[in-house]
């Protein structure tokens, strides 16, 4: 896979757009079992990312991803800032400029491990890992863009009946059951936006 400057900018805009468009929904989800800022946080971060365009897209893919990660870390705050920021930074560190699918699988795995370490968390705790981990499994198993996008949406849905063990929702105990995890929803939005853009790039 090779992404030229235009494609990189398109990717960044798609990621940011997905989050910003759904900011209110993310905030509502966080109001139910958190502190009602997830949409605001992600929006602030991706607005800062957008503000770094077009310069950001001048960088090679790994550098661009690292810069996005650092921007998110320094602008988002809260739990999602370090986690989503770390994911992008580690992805950037692990990917070559023109990654193969195998590169993508390995780099995503490494980024997920970094998120686990940063959050001292695992899949099954009602966090964004409950989207990242199963989506990675589809990717690693050779699933196509469509399969990945579907899994992202379904994995986020599957957090609804879960009991939160990590994140603010864990303070609610049993009351966390029955609500979708906001971080899983934003992860799913980012993944869908990414695969759509990348599929478009690969197919054209």
């Amino acid at each position, binding site marked *: 896979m090779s992404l030229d400057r235009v494609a990189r900018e398109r990717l960044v805009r798609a990621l940011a757009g997905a989050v910003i468009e759904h900011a209110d929904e993310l905030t509502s989800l966080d*109001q139910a079992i958190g*502190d*009602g*800022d997830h949409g*605001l946080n992600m929006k602030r971060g991706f607005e800062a990312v957008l503000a770094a365009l077009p310069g950001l897209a001048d960088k090679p893919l790994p550098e661009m991803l690292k810069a996005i990660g650092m921007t998110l870390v320094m602008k988002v*705050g809260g739990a999602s800032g*370090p986690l989503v920021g770390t994911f992008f930074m580690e992805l950037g560190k692990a990917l070559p400029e023109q990654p193969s699918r195998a590169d993508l699988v390995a780099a995503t795995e490494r980024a997920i491990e970094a998120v686990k370490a940063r959050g001292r968390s695992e899949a099954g705790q009602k966090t964004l890992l409950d989207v990242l981990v199963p989506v990675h499994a589809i990717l690693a198993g050779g699933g196509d863009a469509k399969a990945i996008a579907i899994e992202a949406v379904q994995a986020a849905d599957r957090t609804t009946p879960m009991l939160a063990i990590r994140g*603010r929702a864990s303070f609610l105990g049993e009351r966390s059951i029955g609500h979708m995890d906001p971080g899983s929803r934003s992860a799913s939005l980012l993944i869908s936006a990414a695969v759509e853009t990348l599929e478009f790039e690969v197919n054209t």
Partner: protein
Amino acid sequence: MKKLINSTDTVLEESLDGLAAAHADILLLGVERKFVRRRTLKPGKVALISGGGSGHEPLHAGFVGIGMLDAACPGQVFTSPTPDQMIEAAEAVDTGAGVLFIVKNYEGDVMNFTMAAEMAGREIVSVVTNDDVAVEKSTYTTGRRGVAGTLIVEKMVGAAAEKGMPLAALKALGDHVNRRTRSMGVALLPCTVPAAGRPNFTLTDNEMEMGVGIHGEPGRRRVPLASADDIAAEMLNAILGDLAPGKGSEVMLLVNGFGATPLIELYLMANSAKRILDGAGIAATRFLTGSYVTSLDMAGVSITVSVLDSQAKELWDAPVHTAALRWGI
């Protein structure tokens, strides 16, 4: 949403500017308002830095000054500050004796302060406060939240730092005070994050949320509105059950309003709490009653009990000059 604001985007900036103007004798704002710092530093003293999401005023910026914090990093409302804030604050107030972070136990806060400590390139140690007994303890979860007890840790560690205590001893002291301090809160009315524009939950006239934190999140249980005595009894039951102070123990009682609770009610709650402590043979010899660790415009109260020894009393009584706590100076 009814607030005294100009725009939801500028609430934090304008409020920080007001704080800095009103307390220009003791406070300075960092570049881009990334931190609020003590105007005059004390060379050779360990630098104490705290911070967290905004909306808890006067925590933490109101506790910056002589005998307490050297800097506070205000995040967006209910959002942990970002690592650059803590890094720049440390840069500004570290006089060479090292830096102690005081961090409330939320994953966001802990992760951002940890990243800052990793990236700052200087000696930084952290105390994490987790005094909220409403959250049941479990090794598998995030653990307890840091709430109003944090101010007691900041005051006592601040007094010790002012007297020249070195970094490792301050860390041990902070952990010790935190272990002897427990809190619990109740909300009568929810709060509204300015940028969200609507409350996180709603309550009918006869309901309250028992076991809430300070971020407008729902508590552990929604229960019928109860009397001050019953509320105090439930909270103290949980607190004392966990702290298990011996009969005849001396404690500090902090009755903390969440932002929209009038003082007449807070003193009434202090009275209810004191009666219960008296009945349990526990002597409250230090009191703090007011809105110190708030949750925007939430109506409600938290009770904090901190077990005192002679060192703790001396540190609490030591002079302090900050925007929100002041005595002896």
